[in-house]
């Protein structure tokens, strides 16, 4: 006979204000099998837990139901309490009467009735619960960082510092990411390259870090502590081990008309190229879309001039399989494409540029060697208009609903740098609001206004029209003066919204992690677990989780590293005992479960069965590897005969819950 205890939590007024907790306890106390039903103000408190522990011992309980908050919150707390009192932790059921009841209802009678029903379902389930024992699985002491920008580099350095091996997978030929393209950084105006490149070099020299550049993750299998990742090493047609990075091939390459992506297409590079001087690894890459040798078989100049013999036109993409204990996503961001913004004449007029393009125009390694010149006629601009929130805080489908967070500050930086270097230039900034929360941020912005006399105008630009004399007419409204303005500008700079990198969405699918509607990775808890994804063993670093500036990105990168190190320190982790198993007598061997299993936990074996009349028969049946199974339950739904079942969430338990609710 079952002896079940029911414990109803008030959660202060969170539950008790909308649910009559006394009545819930009283009603559930009359359910068959229930021997004790109590309510208490804070069941998760130490005294609340003691109440549960004492009841287990005193009444010799065989199962308990806690009517409280979501199991995501405190299931573990009560499982531990049960275990401490000698009850198997998997004989604990949580009825969520907070998130799924009190918080969403206003009427006390309705909410109380629903709380009773939810409690009844949990009691029906606990009647069928079986004690389960968790196994252990070893942790591979190696981490994978996906993305080699400042976020990925910082995470990798911190993990390596703690003594663990770490691989960085970067899809581009070099690590460095967006920060490598930036000229100066706010609010200190130090040079981005000066602070980034030492970190890139440190990463390349650290013997615990392996940089897999020009590579992409194509498949992820396994689970926390034991991921198997397939990495595609794209053919760069250059042997990385032989190339010395001398750059002779890039000089001699006859194909020099390739848009240079590092300079945002503002100048050209050769078909064989090293993205920039400080690239890591500093090896050449051949662009197969432009290389004459690869396209037509005629040329071979780079191969002839390479004294190291590193050029290999026959190189193929290579698939590498590696095992990791933790995965850190650091896929970063990109500015949005502005082709839908005809009103700003981007694409029609070369002197209308994005902020990232302006970074390159002002950079010493940029197309103009650091002198700010108009892209159209290489003349010195005298009037520059900055437009804020191009695609940010946007209601329509063209843009993004969120604030891109970094634009206010980098625009203040651009304005200040231009006024400092070219004091004869007038700078206008059109803004909705200026947002400067951050250490020394508002002071920085005020310097732009007060010391550098940048004209900040509240209002949006309506239309940008290139004129025949080479000037650009900027039509805008000044909301504070309540007037329409026309500015004759030489250049217009658009602060394009930022969005997650396009590779993030398919990656999220491979990692079985969640994303929000904007394709930013969702953290496990917005306040308390900001660098973990909801999928165990997957951590988030940098702008892939939301718009961030460099200091915030680095802070989050180190936080993600700390979480990963915490995992890698363990020799083994406790497995979830709620895994699937197959009833071999009912299994058809049809492979439906194998096909839907996202973890590759199901294999098929030929097994001999005893049949009537002393005969035997060999049948193909499913076999679940409990160390790999994560208990998602997909197989139990796919199984046509009902042979697959999940420990702790068996078909009969679920049906019992449904029956209890429908009664």
């Amino acid at each position: 006979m079952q002896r079940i205890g029911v414990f109803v939590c008030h959660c202060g007024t969170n539950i008790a204000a909308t649910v009559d907790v006394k009545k819930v306890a009283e009603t559930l106390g009359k359910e068959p099998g229930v021997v004790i039903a109590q309510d208490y103000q804070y069941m998760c408190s130490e005294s609340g837990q003691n109440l549960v522990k004492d009841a287990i011992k005193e009444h010799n309980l065989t199962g308990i139901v806690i009517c409280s908050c979501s199991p995501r919150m405190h299931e573990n707390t009560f499982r531990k309490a049960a275990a401490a009192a000698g009850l198997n932790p998997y004989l604990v059921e949580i009825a969520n009467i907070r998130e799924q009841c009190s918080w969403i209802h206003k009427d006390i009678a309705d909410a109380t009735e629903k709380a009773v029903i939810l409690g009844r379902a949990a009691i029906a389930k606990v009647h069928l619960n079986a004690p389960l024992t968790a196994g252990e699985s070893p942790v591979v002491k190696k981490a994978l960082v996906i993305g080699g920008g400042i976020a990925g580099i910082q995470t990798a350095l911190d993990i390596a510092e703690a003594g663990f091996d770490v691989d960085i997978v970067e899809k581009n030929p070099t690590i460095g990411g967006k920060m490598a393209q930036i000229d100066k950084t706010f609010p200190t105006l130090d040079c981005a390259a000066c602070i980034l490149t030492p970190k890139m070099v440190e990463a390349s020299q650290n013997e615990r870090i392996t940089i897999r550049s020009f590579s992409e993750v194509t498949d992820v299998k396994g689970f926390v502590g034991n991921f198997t990742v397939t990495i595609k090493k794209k053919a760069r047609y250059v042997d990385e081990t032989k190339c010395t990075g001398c750059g002779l091939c890039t000089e001699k390459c006859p194909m020099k008309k390739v848009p240079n992506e590092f300079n945002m297409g503002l100048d050209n590079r050769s078909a064989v190229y090293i993205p920039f001087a400080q690239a890591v690894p500093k090896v050449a890459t051949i662009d197969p879309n432009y290389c004459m040798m690869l396209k037509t078989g005629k040329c071979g100049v780079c191969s002839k001039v390479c004294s190291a013999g590193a050029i290999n036109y026959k190189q193929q993409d290579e698939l590498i399989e590696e095992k990791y204990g933790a995965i850190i996503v650091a896929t970063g961001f990109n500015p949005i494409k502005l082709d839908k913004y005809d009103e700003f004449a981007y694409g029609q007029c070369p002197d209308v540029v994005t902020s990232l393009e302006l970074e390159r125009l002002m950079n010493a390694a940029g197309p103009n060697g650091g002198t700010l010149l108009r892209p159209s006629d290489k003349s010195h601009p005298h009037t520059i208009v900055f437009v804020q929130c191009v695609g940010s805080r946007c209601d329509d489908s063209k843009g993004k609903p969120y604030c891109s967070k970094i634009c206010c500050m980098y625009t203040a930086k651009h304005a200040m740098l231009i006024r400092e270097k070219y004091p004869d230039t007038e700078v206008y900034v059109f803004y909705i609001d200026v947002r400067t929360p951050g250490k020394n941020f508002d002071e920085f912005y005020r310097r732009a206004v007060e010391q550098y006399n940048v004209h900040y105008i509240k209002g949006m630009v309506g239309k940008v029209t290139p004129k025949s004399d080479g000037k650009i007419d900027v039509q805008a409204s000044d909301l504070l003066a309540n007037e329409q303005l026309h500015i004759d500008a030489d250049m217009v700079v658009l602060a394009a919204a930022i969005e997650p990198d396009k590779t993030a969405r398919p990656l999220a699918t491979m990692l079985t992690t969640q994303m929000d509607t904007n394709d930013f990775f969702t953290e496990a808890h917005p306040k308390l677990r900001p660098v973990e994804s909801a999928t165990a063993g997957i951590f988030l670093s940098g702008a892939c989780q939301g718009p961030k500036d460099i200091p915030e990105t680095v802070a989050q990168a180190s936080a993600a590293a700390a979480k990963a190190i915490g995992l890698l320190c363990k020799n083994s982790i406790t497995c979830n005992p709620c895994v699937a198993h197959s009833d071999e007598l009912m299994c058809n061997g049809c492979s439906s479960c194998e096909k839907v299993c996202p973890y590759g936990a199901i294999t098929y074996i030929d097994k001999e069965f005893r049949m009537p009349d002393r005969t035997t028969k060999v049948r193909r049946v499913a076999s679940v590897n409990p160390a790999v199974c994560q208990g998602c339950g997909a197989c139990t739904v796919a199984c046509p005969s009902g042979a697959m079942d999940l420990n702790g969430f068996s078909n009969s338990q679920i049906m019992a819950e449904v029956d209890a609710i429908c009664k």
Partner: protein
Amino acid sequence: MQEAMINKAKQLLADGTVSRVIGWKRGEFAYDITPAVFETAEELEREFVFDDFTSANVSKYLVKESQKEGKVLAFLKPCDTYSLNQLTKEHRVDRDNIYVVGIPGGPKLDIEKIKAKGITGITGVKNDNYTLRIETIYGEETMPFYEAVLDKCASCKSKKHVTYDELIGEDGDVLESNRFDMVEKLENMTSQERYDFWRGELSKCIRCNACRNVCPACTCENCVFDNPNSGIDNKAPADSFEENMFHIIRAFHVAGRCTDCGECSRVCPQHIPLHLLNRKFIKDINALYGEYQAGADTTSRAPLTNYTADDCEASVVHERGVE
């Protein structure tokens, strides 16, 4: 045709390619054709039948037959080959142990449609594809051939054999079929009309299990309806809920695996159009996940046990159901 098939079977038995043959033999009445296994030339000569009433799909029998010693010869109509492919895909048959001879498909005759004309005492039929001459113990009767054709043949989806080792006659093509017309009609009803339609049909069910027993997708080692632990193992329909649910659960179980062979409706003694439930699933799968024909091959992944990034969102399915 019958002659050619008997000769082919005798030849394959004689040269040792196969050790037995699955075909059909006559039951009590002329139109009563039932699957049978033959092991000798004499048996074939004596009992093997293939005529306008030979509509039974023998693929399901191969689940057991192909596990036995020695190869089995199966004569399969185009629609039957889809069933066999699906069973091969699900590892339910040992395809290497089956020798498939593809034979031309229907249209086959529906005895119930002939009887509905008031014709009884039937001893045989003659058919020139326009007029059906029915021999009875009371003399000859005639009726238009197309009026006597099985529903499943009237909406034939394919004359193509998707798997075979040898063909008698020529292979056909996948057809443009009108098989979803009735489903569309049901979709266009109000939910009350649709409910009334299905209540009317399903309340006729006597729970004889013929639909399940004939269905080539229903080959579970232990059917959920026979499993006392499944919670749905009721035998006789005690109330309207159970009447409805048996067929709906079955339709869910074969969803994405049903090849639309139409056997369920053919064998139903109560003439419930069960295939419409399955066709609704097929139509929805086509619309939501792209065209898919179960059994067309043995390697592709069925949409319901596959995930692709462009699978439709749950909300799309949900909104479709809102009136």
